[in-house]
């Protein structure tokens, strides 16, 4: 009896010690880790827009982040957007019927707005008592010389095993410019192939009309299309790639061999993100125009 108590005591102490060490490590590294993730995300976003190290984004290309929140007040739900305006941020509240409810200026610096905790606190301080907010998603509006050139849509949807995190790029007419898989746990060799160019490249250049009815085709990818999708490997000219991409732009997504579920979830996930975004941004733009709110994008 005494022995079992010592064992329990010692194991508990070891676990506590291990927990302390790991917790300390987490506290010390979490800031740098978040910074790395942010830098990586920025890099992916620029690469989706076609910029890279050799071809850097011109200085008049700007990224404006919009954060969407769900606001609860007296059990009534409404949608709100934290929008950058010249010289600060504003929190625009829109009812579920699409009508403007109100807006409050939010005082927050550009460095703090990217941190979820600081952002939520600043919004709560601006809103005052009696309202609860929940972060929903974010959108990045890309402008060039003040005109919108693209939207970047980070999002996630269920895959075969767990959530798949992606970033989409669409142009102002909601034609897909590109898809990047940020995080997934699909089976290596099967669903894991969603990260390959020959799969995610198929989404590139799909117009909005096609996206609305996009489905998965269980057919082998035609040879010329496969060659165009894997153009990074060389052996095919850029103009030829464009011609073939154009040819297949209204076709369905060719499923991955042995991974129909993963193919379907990515396809329907992308479809849902783009459709919902197109609906939301039309309401937001209408409200901003009606209320004469001047925004930075």
């Amino acid at each position, binding site marked *: 009896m005494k022995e079992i108590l*010592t064992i329990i005591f010692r*194991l508990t102490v070891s676990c506590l010690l291990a927990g302390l*060490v*790991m917790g300390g*490590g987490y506290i010390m590294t979490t800031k740098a880790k978040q910074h790395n993730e942010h830098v990586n995300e920025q890099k992916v976003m620029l690469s989706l827009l076609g910029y890279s190290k050799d071809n850097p984004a011109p200085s008049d290309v700007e990224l404006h982040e919009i954060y969407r929140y769900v606001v609860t007040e007296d059990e009534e739900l409404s949608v709100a957007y934290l929008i950058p305006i010249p010289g600060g941020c504003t929190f625009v509240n829109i009812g579920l019927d699409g009508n403007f409810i109100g807006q409050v200026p939010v005082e927050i610096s550009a460095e703090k707005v990217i941190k979820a905790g600081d952002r939520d606190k600043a919004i709560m301080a601006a809103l005052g008592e009696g309202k609860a907010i929940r972060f929903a998603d974010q959108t990045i509006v890309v402008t060039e010389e003040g005109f919108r050139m693209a939207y970047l849509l980070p999002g996630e949807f269920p895959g075969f095993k767990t959530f798949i995190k992606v970033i989409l790029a669409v142009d102002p007419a909601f034609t897909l410019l590109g898809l990047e898989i940020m995080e997934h746990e699909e089976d290596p060799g099967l669903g894991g192939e969603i990260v390959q160019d020959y799969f995610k490249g198929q989404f590139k250049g799909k117009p909005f009309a096609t996206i609305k009815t996009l489905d998965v085709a269980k057919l082998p990818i035609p040879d010329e299309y496969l060659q165009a999708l894997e153009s990074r490997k060389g052996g095919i000219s850029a103009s030829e790639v464009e011609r073939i991409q154009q040819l297949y732009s209204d076709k369905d997504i060719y499923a991955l061999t042995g991974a129909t579920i993963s193919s379907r979830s990515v396809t329907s996930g992308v479809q849902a993100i783009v459709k919902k975004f197109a609906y939301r941004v039309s309401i937001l733009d209408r409200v901003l125009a009606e209320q004469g709110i001047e925004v930075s994008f």
Partner: protein
Amino acid sequence: MATDKSNFQLVVNGILNENPIFRLVLSMCPAVGISTTVMNGFLLGIAVLFVQVFSSVTIAIFKNMIHPRIRIPTYTLTIATWVTIIDMVLAAYLPEAYARMGIFVKLIVAFAIITMRLEMFACKESVTSSFWDGVGMGLGFMAGMMALGFVRELLGLGTVLGYDVLGFKPLLFFVLPFAGFFCVGLMMAFFNYIEIVYKRAKAIQG
């Protein structure tokens, strides 16, 4: 019971006499699964080296406080803690290395070689000896993995460290998991043969 080996002998012992892969035949899952290229072997080797050294030293420091009936859970806890810390530090300060090594680091918690060295060595010996034993075992594991990776990469893909040296792929069979067993077996036989020849030569001289 203290070891009578010098620090240098401990390191050499880990690489040659008690090589984790070819002599102790431990941690065969990673040896067979991951040693498809020299680079993979090297990266996993580095990760094992760090976890082995840190865990060995930790256990050697606390060896008198560990209750004998819960040694194995304590070892696992120690290894898991170090793996987590190394994983977090890599992710935070060396993101580029982490992108390539991250997947290997998390695997190490379940490696037999580390638990075995804690049980056989670190829990009886001094901190310094345990440190050098950890270095030896880590280097031995790395050397074994790289040797396996070299053979499998060359014969399977015709490359070394990603550079095309043969210009064709001799036997793709070698990069598949089950070929790992053949490779380990054949190389073990080869090293045993060298040892026998060496001992015989020594006996004749003596």
